[in-house]
């Protein structure tokens, strides 16, 4: 600044300590910058594990079945592939035995892998087991035959019955299940198996409330009339939920508690868990309050008898009157078996 004052200031001996302090400050600052820079370099070179960008799928706590790329070659692999094809597109690949518009994959999501969507890896190791439904020890084949009988409503199919025992359809499906369960523990209850449960709610369930839930959350895909939707080629994209094209009264899904669990844990597709327990119960009740193909076990019995024999104590509208209509009589048989050529 001005020179005069400058001259007057006495020479100030800078303390040596100060000099050293400044020096160490400078070195410290520089060192910090260098360390930061070297850190950035390391990060850049990808040498720090765990910090890399990229997609790391979080492993879920459930059993991890193999993915499709891991399918084996050879005769077993071919069987697995055929089994998967049947599983995914049952109406074509087991066409003689499917009497409605459904496939295994409609309820067993993710190609039979999705937890709480009755995944096959969890089911495989549980059979043979005793089932109260038919009061006997069931093998996996028996169990799948039940699916054809009830969920696929084989009665309306071309053959009019599920695949007979020993059919290749069972072999292939079981190959697929066995493969999905590769490495899974045997004969234990696995986390994520079955459809899970929904706790009972205070209000119970009501189709009237369910109707609103359905309109708000389900109709977009399954259509307002619950009959599902097809693409321009007439292929079902969204399965029908009631009526002649859906599972019959003997299917597990016709029970409101089962349907509620499935819905709560899996629906709407991609957004499971968005419905409250109450909503799941209500909408399950709504869906199962419509007429559907009759229970395969009914035979010549009346609805009343069949209810007593097979549905006693179940959460099901079978044999009850809803809106003045007795349910369980069954939708009329089709003119021609479903899928039969003209």
């Amino acid at each position, binding site marked *: 600044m001005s020179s005069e004052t400058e001259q007057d200031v006495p020479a100030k001996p800078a303390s*040596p300590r100060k000099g050293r302090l400044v020096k160490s400050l400078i*070195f410290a600052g520089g060192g910090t910058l260098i360390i930061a820079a070297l850190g950035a370099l390391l990060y850049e070179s990808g040498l720090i594990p765990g910090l890399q960008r990229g997609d790391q799928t979080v492993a879920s706590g459930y059993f991890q079945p193999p993915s499709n790329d891991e399918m084996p070659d050879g005769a077993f692999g071919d069987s697995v592939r055929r089994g998967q094809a049947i599983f995914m597109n049952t109406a074509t690949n087991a066409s003689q035995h499917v009497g409605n518009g459904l496939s295994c994959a409609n309820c067993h999501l993710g190609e039979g892998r999705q937890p709480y969507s009755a995944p096959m890896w969890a089911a495989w190791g549980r059979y043979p087991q005793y089932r109260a439904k038919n009061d006997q020890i069931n093998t996996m084949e028996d169990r799948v035959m039940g699916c054809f009988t009830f969920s696929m409503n084989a009665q309306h199919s071309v053959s009019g019955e599920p695949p007979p025992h020993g059919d290749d359809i069972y072999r292939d499906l079981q190959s697929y299940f066995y493969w999905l369960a590769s490495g899974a523990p045997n004969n234990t209850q696995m986390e994520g198996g079955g459809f899970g449960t929904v706790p009972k709610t205070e209000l119970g369930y009501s189709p009237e409330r369910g109707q609103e839930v359905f309109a708000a959350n389900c109709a*977009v895909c399954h259509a307002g009339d619950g009959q599902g939707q097809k*693409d321009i080629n*007439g*292929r079902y*994209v969204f399965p029908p939920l009631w009526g002649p094209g859906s599972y019959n009264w003997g299917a597990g899904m016709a029970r409101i508690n089962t349907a509620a669990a499935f819905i709560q844990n899996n629906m709407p597709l991609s*957004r*499971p868990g968005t419905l409250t327990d109450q909503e799941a119960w209500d909408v399950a009740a709504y869906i199962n309050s419509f007429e559907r193909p009759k229970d395969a076990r009914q035979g010549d019995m009346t609805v009343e008898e069949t209810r007593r024999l097979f549905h006693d104590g179940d959460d099901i509208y079978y044999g009850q009157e809803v809106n003045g209509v007795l349910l369980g009589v069954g939708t009329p048989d089709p003119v021609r078996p479903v899928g039969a050529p*003209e």
Partner: protein
Amino acid sequence: MTADRRPEQDPRHPDEHFEPYELDASIPWPLLGISIALGVWGAATLFDTRRHEERAQVERVEDTQLATGQAVEPGHALFEASCATCHQPDGLGIRGAVPPLAGSPFVRNGPELVANIMLRGIDGPIRVNDSLYDGHMPSFASVFTDVEVAELASYVTSRWGESNRALEAAEVAELRGRVADLGSFRGGAGVAEDTGFALDEQPTFASGTSQPVSPEISALIFEGRGGQWSCASCHGDLGQGRENTPRLAGLPTDYIVKQLGDFAAGRRINESMAVVVAELSNEEKRALGVYYAGLRVPSNARPDLGGDLERGEQLAREGDWSLTVPSCFSCHGPSGFGVATEFPPLAAQHAPYTASQLAAWAGGQRTNSSLDLMEHISSALSAADRRAVADYLASLPPVPAGSGDMLAEQGEGQ
């Protein structure tokens, strides 16, 4: 070095010190250490680049080849990727919806007919092995190269038609030239008629009538009005779109009408569209929807985002349940043909558009999907996944557009 302090000054020139010079302190060891460390790093990086660069360029060129449809794997892989969603890996089709290839008289007639059908597509009723199918097979002309068509036709006929003849690419090229302007076959009867092949008795084709476009709507589409630019000036004369301007051709009427309304209401944010829709009446929106739904245009979409097509195919066909993402096709229909109003066709849509919409859902600029389904799915996808699936969908053949609302009705059909 002596301790620093204010230097003595020359009384004649109080602030004019000596001309500066340097002391000879040695280089501090930290600086030497840093220099050596950086030197090692630099050399390593450069050597590493040398190794990396060549491979990266090869990979990029491979991507480009994929993008331009020059994949080299013949027959089987192409079939798995492009045909199996409908006709199924075992060629059995879908009962009641997609005719089988196995045992089909069409396939037995040899690779020329198969190639012809692939190039033209089939609309309307067709009878295969006593079963009647009333659907739409898209034209793959814009999706496959001649080589690919030849490979696929040969593969399909050798596997299910027991023909050993291998079609040549040149024959396909010649065929392509001949059928370029013919449009789709009109049902099975059309195939029999046009090609003269002996096929079983085929149902007759009832042609739909397409509605004429009124002059006002035509002006809106091609000339614009007042402060609005014309539709065609961005979406193309044929509604085919480009880059992130979507393909409109073949989208369902109701879907288009809904989107126009959503632009106006801010459920979709796009400034240019907001200007355009501001003055549209409801009737005009519907008329535009009818017009575009009825347009049938080959695909000009390409996988050009460098996405991983295998991953894209996986997402489209199987989904990724670890991300709670169901497959695209589980809602938008097999092959991405779309289902009714809520689930528009995805096939042959431009990859940048699809990817940008997924991003918009994830980022909240688009909020018009039912039950927020797309918002959730998009948020679960990584950027690479968005590109992968958009690229895969762009590689599919376009939906065969019907006339007017026919498609929407069929979609809901019983």
